[in-house]
């Protein structure tokens, strides 16, 4: 089922005119099959679009660009957090914990830089963040914060997969969602081995233990929880 997966064509395809037209077309056909008469018989000129440049940290949820920018903001948050953790681990972190958290830091940096390049000029800028509520010398404080970020990240990704309009973005989100879930399990394991997938405890983020379902949370709810760490004003629209 997965087609057009040529890696090289991804970037140019994502925000291309034809992709946008395709989305509109799919909406159109959903509404009425009669539309085929118009499409088939009357050929309209493709309007020339000026490439969009994001100058004011806009996260516009009218399409996947907003969704990608929203996830990019979360990845900036996670990367910055782990960079700060790894710059001076809490005194009682074990060697294994240092190794795991260093791994996570590097993966989050890779995610952040991936979105930065993927979004290009349509991306938000580098956000100013605020971790003043976290005591980076205290293992409990660090683990609690990491658990919050990873569970929230997993919930955001699961929602983004369902919300994405472009199947290429769906694949990308799904590829990272499981990595964030791995992080969440590992961080939780450091707090208590039996917390790794405690779906009862995660009910507030949308998990359903009886069905074995993980967290899922819409962008407005995620942003409400993440905003206290983000000082830069995000221009969130069409949510």
């Amino acid at each position, binding site marked *: *089922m*997965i*087609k*057009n997966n040529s*890696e090289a*064509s991804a*970037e140019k395809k994502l925000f291309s005119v034809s992709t946008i*037209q*395709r989305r*509109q*077309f799919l909406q159109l056909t*959903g509404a009425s*099959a*009669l539309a*085929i*008469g118009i499409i*088939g*018989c009357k050929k309209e000129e493709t309007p020339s679009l000026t490439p969009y440049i994001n100058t004011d940290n806009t996260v516009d949820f009218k399409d996947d660009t907003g969704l990608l920018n929203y996830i990019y903001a979360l990845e900036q948050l996670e990367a910055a957090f782990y960079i700060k953790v790894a710059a001076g681990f809490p005194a009682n972190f074990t060697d294994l914990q240092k190794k795991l958290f260093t*791994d996570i830091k*590097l*993966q989050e*940096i*890779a*995610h952040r*830089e*991936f979105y930065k*390049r*993927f979004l290009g000029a349509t991306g938000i800028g580098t956000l100013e963040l605020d971790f003043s509520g976290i005591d980076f010398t205290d293992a409990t404080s660090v683990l609690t914060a990491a658990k919050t970020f990873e569970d929230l990240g997993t919930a955001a990704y*699961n929602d983004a*997969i*369902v919300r994405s309009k472009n*199947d*290429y973005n*769906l*694949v*990308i989100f*799904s*590829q*990272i*969602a*499981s*990595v*964030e*879930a*791995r*992080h969440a*399990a*590992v961080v939780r*394991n450091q707090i208590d*081995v*039996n917390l*790794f*997938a405690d*779906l009862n405890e995660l009910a507030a983020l949308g998990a359903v233990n009886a*069905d*074995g*379902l*993980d*967290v*899922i949370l819409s962008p407005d709810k995620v942003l409400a929880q993440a905003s206290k760490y983000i000082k830069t004003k995000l221009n969130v629209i069409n949510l």
Partner: protein
Amino acid sequence: MNILNILNEIEKVDGEIYERLSPRRSAMKDFLNVGKKISIAALPLALSSMLQKAYGQTAPNTAVIDALNLALVLEYMEFQFYNNALTVTPNLIPDADKPVITTLRDHEQAHINLLTKTITDLGGTAKAVMPYANFDYTKVNANVNTNYGTFLRTAVVLEDLGVRAYKGQAISLIGNNAVLSAAVRIHSVEARHSAQLRLMVNKLQVATLKQLRPWIGVRRNDDGTAVVPTTTNDSMIGALSPVYDKDSTVANSETKTMQAGMELTGINGFTEITVEPAAECFDEYLLTATVKTAANLFIKAAFQLT
């Protein structure tokens, strides 16, 4: 009005029109051949009904049912594995680890129940329960029921396969948000399982797996150096490579470091992003055919997936 012109125009905005019309290109060709014989007057109606099938939301959708049934087989495989250990060979599991294995077993049971109900609700037929006896869990080592390390390593492979399989089926579920939502939320639970089990294997510090990480990527030697990609996989069992390797036509091995046309190693000048994090930061999907090949490694001959 020319049907081929219409399809060509649609193809410009929807490159997958032919796939939507029929998953089999040959069937599409058949239709076009039939089309030549249909009178001009009948064409708009025939095309309209064809597009309705391609873009409509009519259920039951066999692609969705097939995707869920494939997932169901993997859930049976995982459930029976954990349940057998808990009920038939309980001495295999250290007491301290029993709550974890119980959680894994219970999640898989919940997934089985949910998938079965979803398939039925969609008008499909759920794959019947596959008992323990249908499976062969000896691929890591025949001592799987007496050696806890083997047991955990086998569980890791089953969960790793589950994560990749759900990812691969997600595309088939586009357009059905309720089902897609359930699938992705099972998918991330399986990823949590995999990470947990990998940590447990790491804790045992068995030779060749001392540096096993909770994330999948380029394997590390026991001294911490990276192993040259594609020669070995995280299970250290060559026969299990279908679980970690690429699909036949897609470069999606778990060791890959290129995503969306971008090389992640050293991305944007970040030299600390070496091959290990570059491979670990993205998980890879697995397409249906390879999932079946990999699953069949754990299914006895008479019950294998075709």
